Structures are given as C-alpha cells and as structure tokens.
C-alpha cells in the first residue's frame, strides 16, 4: 500500500545510489534521468513491471516500453525464455542491464518503487494477481478476459476501489476495431439496438492430455497456481491464440475458451457500441438443437433495457441486420429516433488503450475500459458458457449476484482455488 509519489521519489533515490556506486558520475546528472524534449524526467515517469510476458504480454510490454513517460523496470514470468527475452527487450531499450526478472509475481509486487503493472497471464491467475496488486498499491493494466468466474469480478472491483487503484481491462480492440458500428449507433442512426448476433467460438473444454516431462525452464507449479494440479503438457500451457486443444486458451481450468477470449473483443465492442456497459444480463436462454438436427444449440442473453445478444444463432434464424461487422457481428436497430451522443474517447488525447491507462495513472481518472464495465461485459459470455454446460435457461439477479432458483447453476459462480492461493 505505497503512495505513488513517495515511491517514485524513492525509486529515483534508490537508482541514484545504485548507479552512483557503480560509475563515477551520479545517475541524476544523466540526460535520461533529467529528460529532454521527448522524455519526461525520471521523477515524472510511471515505473512499470510486467507479469506474464510471453505472447500477448510481449505485445503489451512493447507498447509500454515505447512510451517515454514509462520507466520499465521489471518482468516476471514462470518461463525462463519469456523472462529472459522480456528483460532483454527492456535492457535494449534503455541501454543498460537494469531490468529485474522474477519468477514469482509476489516479489515484483513487493517493490515499493513500482507504480503500475501489466498482467497478461492465463486467465486463472487474473483475480489473484489483480487483487494482490491493488493491495500492494499498484495500478493494473489487465489483459482480457478480466475474469474467469462470475464471483471474481466484484471482488476485483472492490479491491480496486478500496485502494483507489486505476485498473484497466485490456481489450485494445473495443475502441480500435469497431468504429464502423460504434459511430452510427452513438450518432443515433439506427435507433435503439434490439438484437445483436455474435459469431465466435464456444466455451473451453476439459483437458485429457497425457503427461510429458516437465522442461527445466518452467516453474510448473507456479504456472498452474490456483488451477487444479495436472501433469505438464506443452499443449496445456502453450500461449498461442488457438482454442482447438493446443493452448491454455482451449481448457476449462485456465480459460473460458474462444467465447471469453476472442469473445471479449466481440462482446466488448458490441456492448460498448450498444451502450450496455453498465448493465448485466437478466435472462440467459438456451436454445436446444432443433428436432431435425439442422440447427445447433445456441444461447442468448437479454439485458434489462430489452437488448438481446445471441451467440452463434443459426444463420437462417437471424433477422436482417441494420449494421454488420465483418462476418462476426450483426446488429439490428429499431429505427426510432434516438439523440446522438459523443463517442467516448481515450483519456488525455491518447490513441491507444495503453496510453489511456497511463493517462489515467497520472490523473487518477477511470480508464476507458475500467474494470467495472469490463466485468459487466464479461458476465454475458460467462453466463452463456454456464447455460451451454447445463443445457438450460437461467435467470440472473444482479443485486445478489446469483442465478435465481437454480442451485446447480450457482455452483458455477466460482471454483475452489488450489492452495495456497486465495482471493
């Protein structure tokens, strides 16, 4: 629970001492520390570290490393290769060897000099790490999907609010990719959105992969963390973006599958476009496979304003759309008059979600994809997944965060975490 301004001063002081002991000139006199026309002085830079630094984490690290107002000082990954490569990228950027590399995220969070972290681990770690980071006084940029279970979201939001932390969800596409549907809807051109069809893969699956020898460069127990213990298999933990069985995104213990992974973008984009960010679904309808077998089962979620989102509704059942986005999104408006509203923008005139986060770290504003609307967004895909697993319709009470009259569905609200991990 550090104070950011204090910690940043401490960072400069600590760095000065360390550098001063190694070289003749005090660190504070270098141009990099003082800043220049394009780089703020060290005391005005946000000190950052990254947790989960492979694949998507690598991209996130690059985005933050590229900012002159960020001082990137630490990486953490349970894989040596990702850890070393992440450190090398930071060191190459700054022309030194100063970036620290950790296996255990708790060591990184214990550093008082770090203001903010980005987290791009598999989903089963998100809640544990985000809550711990908030408790440690760090702001957080958290890759989507922000949650793995429905119970995690409110606990994460509470931690962020409790400690006054800026926590941004991590879908860079929500504002970046979907303007062709966002702009006309916010301009009032199609009236109120009545239905949205989203075509994206389904929920994650069970994993029955065989055991393989555990490579020496991975801390397997720490990779698993709060998830059930399973033997190492490269297909279980590969960070590639597939969901067909050769990545962690395929499997129930670590991910919600395509439905919450790529789905986080599609649901995020459409929910933003339709202005549903403050809402959670109230009804989840399971549509079973048709009697003739021609139409596969699909699920829809209804929001309290009347908008309904359909996941993988068969093509022949979809209404004619008013707007489309590629082959993935089909949006129907009621055509009624609706006043135009300005489309929200990233803060500080920034052009990326990374810049939005950093701007908010400086100003303490809520970021574009603040954790609360991000959690709201993900409730839909999580509920859809549960309806598919139970093959029945559900009703949701937002106030109690419970399914109504369905104790079995409520068993899916959370999962027991493997000791010693807690939230």
């Amino acid at each position, binding site marked *: *629970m*550090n*104070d950011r301004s*204090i910690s940043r001063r401490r960072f400069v002081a600590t760095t000065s001492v360390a550098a001063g002991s190694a070289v003749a000139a005090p660190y504070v006199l270098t141009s990099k520390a003082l800043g220049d026309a394009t780089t703020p002085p060290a005391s005005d830079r946000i000190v950052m570290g990254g947790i989960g630094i492979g694949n998507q984490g690598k991209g996130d690290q690059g985005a933050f490393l590229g900012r002159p107002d960020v001082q990137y000082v630490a990486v953490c990954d349970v894989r040596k290769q990702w850890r070393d490569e992440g450190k090398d990228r930071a060191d190459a950027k700054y022309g030194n060897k100063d970036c620290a590399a950790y296996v255990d995220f708790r060591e990184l969070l214990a550093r008082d000099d770090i203001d903010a972290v980005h987290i791009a681990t598999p989903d089963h770690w998100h809640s544990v790490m985000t809550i711990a980071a908030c*408790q440690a*006084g760090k702001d957080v940029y958290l890759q989507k999907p922000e949650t793995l279970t429905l*119970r995690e979201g409110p606990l994460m939001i*509470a*931690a962020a609010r*409790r*400690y*006054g932390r800026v926590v941004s969800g991590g879908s860079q596409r929500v504002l970046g990719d979907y303007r062709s549907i966002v702009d006309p809807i916010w301009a009032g051109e199609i009236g109120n959105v009545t239905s949205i069809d989203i075509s994206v893969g389904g929920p994650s699956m*069970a994993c*029955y*992969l*065989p*055991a393989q020898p555990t490579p020496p460069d991975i801390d397997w127990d720490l990779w698993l963390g709060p998830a*059930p*213990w*399973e*033997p190492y298999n490269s297909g279980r933990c590969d960070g590639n973006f597939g969901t067909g069985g050769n990545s962690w995104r395929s499997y129930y213990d670590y991910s919600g599958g395509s439905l919450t992974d790529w789905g986080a973008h599609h649901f995020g984009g459409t929910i933003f476009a339709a202005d549903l960010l403050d809402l959670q679904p109230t009804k989840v309808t399971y549509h079973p496979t048709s009697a003739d077998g021609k139409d596969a089962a699909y699920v829809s979620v209804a929001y309290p304003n009347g908008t309904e989102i359909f996941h993988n509704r068969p093509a022949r059942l979809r209404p004619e759309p008013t707007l489309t986005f590629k082959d993935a999104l089909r949006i129907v408006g009621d055509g009624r008059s609706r006043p135009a509203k300005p489309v929200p923008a990233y803060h500080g005139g920034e052009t990326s979600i990374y810049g939005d986060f950093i701007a908010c770290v400086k100003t303490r504003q809520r970021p574009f994809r603040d954790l609360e609307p991000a959690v709201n967004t993900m409730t839909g895909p999580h509920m859809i997944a549960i309806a598919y*697993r*139970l*093959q*029945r319709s559900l009703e949701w009470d937002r106030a109690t965060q419970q399914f109504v009259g369905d*104790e*079995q569905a*409520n*068993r*899916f609200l*959370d*999962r*027991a*975490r*493997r*000791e*010693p*991990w*807690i*939230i």
Partner: protein
Amino acid sequence: MPLDLASLDAPFAALAAYDWGGDATPFKAIDDAVVAAHGDSTLRTDLEKRFAPILGAGASRAAKEYACRKLMMIGTAASVPALAALLGDADNSHMARFALERIPAPEAAQALRDALGTVPARLQIGMIESLGGRGDAASVPALARLLAGDQNVAVAAATALGHIHTPEALAALSSADPLAGAGVGRAVVDARLATAEALLAAGKRAEARNVYQSLADAVKGKPGAKGVELAATRGLLACLDTLAAAS
C-alpha cells in the same frame, strides 16, 4: 426417455481404469448423464454411488479428479464422506474441495470445518479459502483462532473472515493487529475494509463508519500505513456520501 442406467457400467469401468493420457471418449456418456441428472433424483443418486468408489483407493489421481469435477455439479450430502476422506491427502485435497466448496449441503461445510483442525498448514489454507468462499458463518470461531497461528494461515483466515460479514467475524478481525507483519496486518486491514463496505452497502452506515474510524485511529501516523489511512479515509467519505444521499 429415462437413461438406461446399465449403459453407464462400461463408461464407469473405463473411468476406474483411467489415467492421464488414456482414452477419455467413454466419459462423454458420463458427462451427458451428469447434465441429465438435473431434476432426476434417481439418476443423480445412481451417479453419486458410482463416483464414490472412484474416490477411494485404487483409482488414479486423474480418475479422482474427474469424479470431483462431476460431483461439483451434482454432489449432495451423500457424497460428502468420500470427498471428506481426501481432504488430508496432499495430492487430492484440492479437488475434494473443488467439489465440496460448491456443494450447498451443510454437511459439506462441516467437512471443511472438521478438516481445519487436522490437516497441515498448506492444506488448511485451502479449507479456509473454501469456507470463506462459502461465506460460512459457522467457521468464524475456528478462523478467529487461526489469526494468531502460522502467518500464511493467518492471512488466509483474515481474508476469509472478510468474506463472512457477520458481527462475530468483524469482532474477530477487530481484535487482530492491523499492523502485524508478514502480510497478516495487510490481510486484517483488507478484511476489515471489506466488512465495512458490506455494512455500508447494507445501509448500516454507523457501523461502517465505526470500522473505518477505528482502523484510521489504529494506524494513524504509523510507518508504512499511509495506504491504510487513505483507504479508511475514503471509506469515511463514502459514509458521508451515503448520509448526504439519504438526507
């Protein structure tokens, strides 16, 4: 049409012999039966009886894990004894909790509470996490005692108490040192703040204000406690906001 229970004999025989990497194709029939058991007490009872021996000696860890995943969905009090027997087993304790934590029967919570006093510290943390996840008010006395023990256990106990939100849980947290070291103090603070938030959300403004104020008083001017002071102050302001909104 009701499921022919005999059709499950072969899949369960395959499960009994299963280990990681084996043929999981037969499990599809069990998966489907577990879903079909909703509203079918005969099938549910039959499935629970079939899973129980899988949890005993002889079946692999992988087979036990599969059984626990399915009992998470359909388990009742009838499955608790077989699951509880695994709580002290380091290899299988977590998966037993995977089921027990989500089974609403009071017997499941009792099994977790009973294990608190018998399992090693690392597994204790798991029991505590599950009891906190259930918001189990009956576990408060046991959790309160653990606040003074092993530091990692104490952190977990404080966190769990922060999920329970009863006056007894708050009393236990209020008697713990918010400045204790090794993360215990931070967990105590966090749990007290969480309880205050729950009180405020329930409209119990005066009680919430007392929690925030006592925390602020306890840490005022103490080294390293600035974050706690800020959080408590933020809470006090929230109480004022609520007061203003109500007036």
